[in-house]
């Protein structure tokens, strides 16, 4: 028995959650006025801002433009103060570039790009505080920002992490502390309504026998997050609508 357990015998994780509980999620749409759409999300202590510009004319080399679809440009960056030790470069390093590509992959799966040929959509995400599940928070924030920008989506794309505690019990939404303690972390981005997986990533190898239950837990996490995001979107609409007299104030 090691001194550090991911899940204690009484069934609580180090921060007091149970295995299948998400961290507290708070989110807000329309936090900036300059971009076409923006959102802020907090998953536990992980805090992420997302801003969406577009669709607009393709900038830079026109050769990139596509005749049948919009191109999606993602940029991931982490504030230098977002981690315990200050980061040297907020963006452009290998890890950030990889994150940008993964983010693009998840978003491309849901944006109806075919509606905007010859145009471009920019998604900028900035991590203010990293406390585990950074990628997941970025995907969720981007979804909200895209909705705020009014870009047509097939459905919500949500991401969630899951891991395996004590080699047996799957647990969802991994915090930084738990990531460091060990155990493989599985990140899944999915379209929860159609149950399609658009991205899946693992930090470590783990035995095939465990994969189904961990994956199932991660997908359940995605669905739960979708419900929360959906509620936030509806609330936002009510707020925006009521100020313009569009919806009746409750």
């Amino acid at each position, binding site marked *: 028995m090691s001194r550090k357990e991911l899940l204690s015998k009484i069934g609580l994780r180090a921060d007091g959650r149970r295995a299948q509980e998400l961290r507290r999620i708070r989110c807000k749409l329309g936090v900036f006025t300059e971009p076409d759409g923006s959102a802020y999300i907090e998953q536990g202590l992980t805090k992420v801002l997302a801003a969406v510009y577009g669709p607009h004319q393709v900038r830079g080399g026109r050769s990139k433009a596509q005749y049948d679809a919009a191109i999606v440009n993602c940029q991931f960056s982490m504030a230098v103060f977002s981690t315990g030790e200050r980061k040297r470069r907020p963006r452009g390093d290998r890890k950030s570039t990889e994150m940008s590509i993964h983010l693009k992959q998840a978003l491309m799966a849901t944006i109806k790009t075919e509606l905007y040929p010859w145009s471009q959509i920019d998604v900028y995400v900035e991590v203010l505080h990293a406390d585990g599940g950074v990628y997941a928070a970025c995907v969720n924030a981007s979804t909200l920002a895209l909705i705020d920008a009014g870009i047509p989506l097939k459905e919500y794309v949500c991401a969630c992490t899951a891991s395996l505690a004590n*080699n047996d019990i799957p647990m969802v939404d991994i915090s930084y502390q738990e990531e460091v303690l060990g155990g493989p972390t599985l990140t899944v981005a999915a379209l929860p309504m159609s149950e399609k997986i658009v991205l899946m990533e693992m930090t470590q190898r783990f035995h095939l026998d465990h994969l189904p239950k961990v994956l199932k837990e991660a997908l359940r996490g995605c669905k739960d997050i979708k419900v929360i995001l959906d509620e936030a979107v509806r609330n936002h609409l009510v707020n925006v609508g009521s100020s313009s007299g569009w919806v009746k104030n409750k």
Partner: protein
Amino acid sequence: MFTTKVFIRKNKIGNFLKNIREHYLRDDLFCGFTSCNVCKPEDTALSSNIENKSGLFNYPHYLILDTNIILDQMDILEEDVICNVIILHTVLKEVKHRSLAIYKRLNAVIDNPNRHFFVFINDHHRECYVPQEDTELINDYNDRCIRTACLWYINHIPDAKFVFITDDARNRALAEEENITTCSIEQYVRSIKENNLLEDKLAKRDYHVESDTQDLFPAHLTVTQVQEGIKEGRLHQGTYRASTSNFLEGFVSVDGYEDAILVQGRSGQNRAIDGDLVAVEIFKEQDWIAPSEIILEDESRVDTAVEEVLLKENELKEYSTGKKKKEKAKPTGCVVGIIRRKWRPFCGILQQDAPEGALYHLFVPADKKFPKIRIETRQAEFLKTQKIVVVIDDWPRYSRYPAGHFVRALGKIGDQATENEVVLLEHDVPHSKFSEEVLSCLPKLPWIITEEDVAKRTDLRHLDICSVDPPGCTDIDDALHCREIEGGMLEVGVHIADVSHFIRPGSALDVEAASRATTVYLVDKRIDMVPALLSSNLCSLRGGEDRFAFSCVWEMDKNANILKTKFHKSIIRSRKAMTYEEAQLTIDDKSRNDSIAQSLRNLNNLAKILKQRRLEKGALVLASPEVKIRMDSETMDPIDVEVKKLFETNSMVEEFMLLANISTAEKTLKDFPDCAMLRRHPEPPKINYEPLVKAGKHLGFEIKTGSNKELAISMDNAVKEDNPYMNTMLRILATRCMMQAVYFASGMFQKEDYYHYGLAVPLYTHFTSPIRRYADIIVHRLLAVSIGADVTYPDLLDKHKTSDLCQNLNYRNRMAQLAGRASVAFNTHLFFRGKLQDEEAYILSVRKNALQILIPRYGLESTLYLSQKGKKSIFEYNEEDQTQKYEDVVFHAFDPVIVRLALDSNNIQREKLVLQLVFPVVKGFSIPPLNEEHKRKVETDQKKTKAKKSKKK
């Protein structure tokens, strides 16, 4: 609800980092009371039907414990008397942080439903959580959390009464202020009605210092002082090892010094106990002294007899600080602080000579390495007849001995059952009965082979397979066959019991077997790794019965070159279970020509070639004096001690087992480069060989230790015609120079380190004894996967898990080996009880005041003291040549002697064999022989010397 914990921590590089963590507060946590209608009910162990019977609190009550109670008084908590206890999560976490061993024991108590312990998660409870204040120390904060939880309980369940037990006076005072009922553990235990001498088990911790007593030991440095000292290089960290022969000497092995640091005397040892991690200060070089080489025993009687120790210390000083000694001086130092205690429960007896009615007694541990322990008991008269278990609580400066408390009695001194128990406990051998859960994993009887089984396995029942084992063996795990096939080739098969078929990964049986790791053989008892149904029935490859096996089949030519290796799971029927002797007779009996005899002959021939080839590569032939004790089958008393007989067939079986192990190692490593379980035997450092090389030099042989091959050759050459046993003794010495062979996960070491030095093979593992070794089960599982007969499971492929497992296996193996030896030693003593016997023996080494004697017939090694206590030795010790001389008689290492054996039963715990010299005759020292043969020998010798003397004249 949600809050955050903020704390600042220093990282490895030395930067200060701010850490922020979430801390969720919940409202769905259960308080543990079924009568509560606020909380959501869950399972609870608390019961209103059970009562703690305390005179102090004359009503049903529930106990809430402070951390210090659990850390110090675990022995009390393990008693059934105390129940209905609420363990707060704050306490549980603190216990885990402070001592993992206590935490495990606490968990065992919590898991036992009869004890009615309940864990309440107060730190995540919405109403019990209190934030830590800015300047508050963590201990004070924890105390406050505990008191808050107590108050919450009092308000939450007004019907029930709660008693808060703590030994921290300040916490108790604060609790009383807040109107919490509280008392100390001592008060509480004293007031229990059915006390049952529970008081004896209270740990005594003196928190206050008696000022009038004289300090016998220097103070230890504080933790920060030690840390600073080590950082600055003034102090050194190392594990303390007590000398087995001299209670005032010990050694600390420290990085950067080739020799272990010698610490001597009370002030040098400074309350360190064997195994402790200590900080030592090394003296300046001119103050270094040599190890004393004398044997000293602690004989003090009463508790405060310091004079006796002073006397012995002076004696020691005389020996260590002679002028001549300077050149042999070793780095010397003294213990200045203890970094980590390695205290464990000790087995032993009470010192017999305490006055009647005394409250304080001295406890003498069975293992000489440990000091005596002072305990308080009210049942001394009874305990004096018993072997008991005691733990150390504390060792204050003013006390000559550590203070401890009694844990339990094992049984009457001298009983075989008690002694076995002691051996098992002292070597940490798990030996409780198999639990119901484990037994439920066993297959149901009658066990039959189904069609499905047959379809999955290769049917080898038509082959003439037989097994060869020592007599009386019931756990037969290997069988062999050999037959001629086309092209003049031979097919050789080694069939190993398929234990992994019955023990499925992750089952309770598997977990238990992994923890036991090996079957332990005592002289009259076997502690099985797996239940008897498997070990001596279903897995045992008994003659004439169908059994599952894992077969390794080679195609070989007549020169024992392997052409093809095949592994498969099989069904076999052993034709006969033979003993080594039977097999040998079958081979030698020319009239027998049946297939078994032929196959044995073929095997034997192949084995000889294999052995020859192995020896050419540099494999070592080592020896150790192994004996077998014959027991009277009714009384279970030892009736004879004999050296194990070896036949050619022993070596035959061994060769094929080695071959199977090597083949398996190659196969599993190829398929699992990262997580194969292998066995390595590291080359010993050159310094280990020193005694061997020295002994060889005195005899005029050069022992080369450059490589295993050189060593093997030089030992083969070291033969003296007039002393045939000498070579064996050299080999015994060589065995003692070796390192331990260990299991490891292949992913954790470099390829070069896989080498097995003793066998001279690059790869080795254990495959052939899955009934009695857990390592083999793992190897079976790996092999089964690589031939597609089974599936993997997560832990099998995790090199870190495998590595952890290996550590346990290595530890248990070592302990099992030691336990076996201890058991043999005890029974040998039992055999010599009331006997006097003259025996031929050899001098193994020459010491300053003694000769180390080896008696081959009994495989015994013992000390022959050359000087009586307090008297000066008549012998002259020559350190250079390692000889002892008196007049004409000179003792060299390896000289033959005759000694008389007798058992000294004065010390009932440590009966020891006493040797007296019979031959050669030394006037005023040796004693006359007992039997005729020896008498004649002595006489002829005397005539010879007389003749010599007269010639000289």
